[in-house]
């Protein structure tokens, strides 16, 4: 047995101790290359900081119903599919209702830092409703960050309005930079009082998106670019998109999987266009990694999502419930500040601990083991604290000799839906196993007997021994156990021939 205490061990780190990757050591280092001014803006934004998403909450309000383009993965009976998962319908709010709801949520969930408008259509296709909401909120809850998402068509026209309302984060969905590719994604746009179809429409949309991106960057507004990965349509092309948007100053590029089901009645759903597998998605994200920092924890939240990423407490804030709440806004804001300060202190402590994190490879430079993907069930706070059967999604971490790295998340259906059926839902379990493809370990607080057997049979080792432990430490501990048990020995000959 090897003893490899990693955290906090006082071994002098080698000058370049295995830290070639930008994401070495801390999963939040995806932000480390950013200028201080940007980091300051994003460090407590759950959508932009992997670290923050364990602690801070966000909400969306659905005030903007109209849209001015058509995407082949969207059915306008439902919410904008750029930001939400398809097939979802949010309750449309008036700006006044949205303001009330935001203040109520911010008073009830003090971890809240961000309010976004992302639908249910395109926020800039309903500019009056969108900007009225922002204007009022920047006055009544100045500590809440505001952000907006758009397909980009009307961006150049509204950039100055966006800057005026102190919105410092904008998300643009950019699926292509080539009109020929665009025509396969966007059948039409509405532009200057006309519906324009095909390549001509796509060309205008692309031009507007790129112009909007440049104008936002020029005004110092942070821009995240979202892309929907559509296998066979834009998957290869997105590598170029990633390069271009980065060179123009977008600070994050987030590749999301196409979700296409016939039931949603979308073009892609009906025509049988498939979405990417988890492995294909990770592959593209990896390929773009050199170009740009990726945001792998994005959940494609619905247009009225409330709470921590991966959770939705929207039901607690229906209009009649808000009406019944009695809120002291001023003291709510004070309490928020206090809660945020506590979270900051916690994150600071975590960061310091990580600074002492010693890459395994520096302790055993002669050995290089292959990396291992592990799935983690968590409800937040950065620890393993969820029962396998209650997990709606798993966070995927990659452990290697150099570090533990967050690489994405896999959505699943609930394995245990309660009641008698719990435990013999063969198909759901099979779906989960498919979603965890490529993972060798699944870490959770507890797991039932039957899924345990099925996972093992599929080559995924369930592990409930690290309940309530910090995720990254637990993943590293399991990785070391695997090394110690000789499970990673097949590459033991890959020695550091060129090591100092």
């Amino acid at each position, binding site marked *: 047995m090897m003893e490899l205490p990693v955290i906090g061990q006082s071994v002098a780190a080698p000058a370049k101790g295995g830290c070639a990757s930008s994401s070495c050591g801390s999963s939040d280092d995806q932000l480390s290359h950013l200028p201080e001014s940007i980091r300051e803006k994003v460090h407590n934004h759950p959508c932009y900081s992997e670290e923050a998403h364990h602690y801070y909450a966000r909400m969306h309000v659905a005030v903007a119903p*109209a849209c001015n383009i*058509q995407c082949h993965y969207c059915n*306008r009976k439902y919410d904008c599919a750029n930001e939400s998962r398809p097939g979802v319908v949010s309750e449309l709010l008036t700006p006044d209702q949205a303001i009330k709801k935001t203040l109520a949520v911010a008073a009830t969930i003090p971890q809240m830092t961000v309010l976004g408008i992302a639908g249910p259509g395109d926020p800039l296709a*309903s500019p009056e409703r969108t900007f009225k909401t922002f204007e009022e909120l920047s006055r009544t809850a100045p500590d809440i960050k505001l952000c907006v998402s758009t397909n980009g068509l009307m961006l150049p026209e509204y950039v100055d309005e966006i800057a005026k309302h102190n919105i410092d984060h904008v998300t643009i969905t950019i699926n292509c930079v080539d009109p020929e590719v665009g025509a396969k994604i966007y059948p039409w746009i*509405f532009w200057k009082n006309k*519906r324009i179809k095909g390549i001509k429409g796509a060309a205008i949309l692309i031009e507007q998106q790129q112009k909007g991106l440049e104008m936002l960057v020029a005004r110092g507004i942070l821009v995240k670019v979202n892309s929907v990965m559509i296998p066979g349509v834009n998957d290869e092309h997105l590598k170029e998109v990633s390069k271009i948007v980065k060179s123009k100053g977008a600070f994050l590029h987030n590749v999301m999987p196409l979700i296409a089901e016939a039931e949603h009645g979308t*073009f892609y759903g009906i025509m049988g266009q498939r979405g990417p597998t988890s492995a294909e998605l990770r592959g593209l994200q990896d390929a773009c990694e050199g170009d740009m920092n990726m945001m792998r924890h994005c959940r494609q939240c619905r247009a009225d999502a409330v709470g921590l990423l991966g959770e939705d407490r929207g039901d607690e804030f229906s209009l009649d419930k808000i009406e019944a709440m009695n809120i002291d806004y001023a003291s709510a804001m004070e309490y928020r500040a206090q809660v945020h300060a506590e979270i900051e202190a916690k994150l600071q402590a975590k960061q310091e601990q990580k600074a002492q994190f010693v890459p395994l490879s520096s302790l055993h430079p002669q050995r290089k083991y292959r990396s291992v993907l592990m799935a983690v069930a968590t409800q937040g706070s950065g620890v393993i604290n969820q029962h396998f059967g209650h997990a709606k999604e798993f966070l995927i971490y990659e452990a290697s000799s150099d570090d533990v790295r967050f690489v994405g998340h896999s959505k699943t259906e609930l394995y245990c839906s309660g009641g008698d059926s719990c435990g013999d839902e063969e198909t759901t379990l099979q779906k989960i196993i498919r979603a965890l493809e490529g993972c060798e370990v699944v870490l959770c607080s507890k797991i039932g007997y039957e899924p345990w057997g099925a996972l093992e049979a599929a080559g995924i080792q369930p592990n409930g021994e690290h309940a309530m432990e910090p995720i990254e430490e637990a993943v590293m501990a399991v990785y070391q156990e695997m090394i110690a048990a000789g499970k990673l020995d097949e590459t033991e000959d890959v020695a550091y021939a060129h090591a100092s």
Partner: protein
Amino acid sequence: MALQIISACVNCWACAPLCPSQAIYEASPHFLIDPKKCTECDGDFTETQCASICPIEGAILNSQGMEVNPAGSLTGIPPEKWQSVMAEIRAR
């Protein structure tokens, strides 16, 4: 002469602000066009604005009662394909 919004409308609000004649109003269960006010955009635009932005095929009829955007014209989904996939889903 007037256009008409029928039950396929999904209440997306896109059309109403574009109407040069303020003929479109929110109503239940769906938006409506006041036939006395609708000018078919004559004199203002070459294309009827509501029908040019409406994303839903079949939601708007012209003065002859014909769909301005018939099935397949906006989504690109061939109507036969739509029918067969929907039949498949129902059969499940």
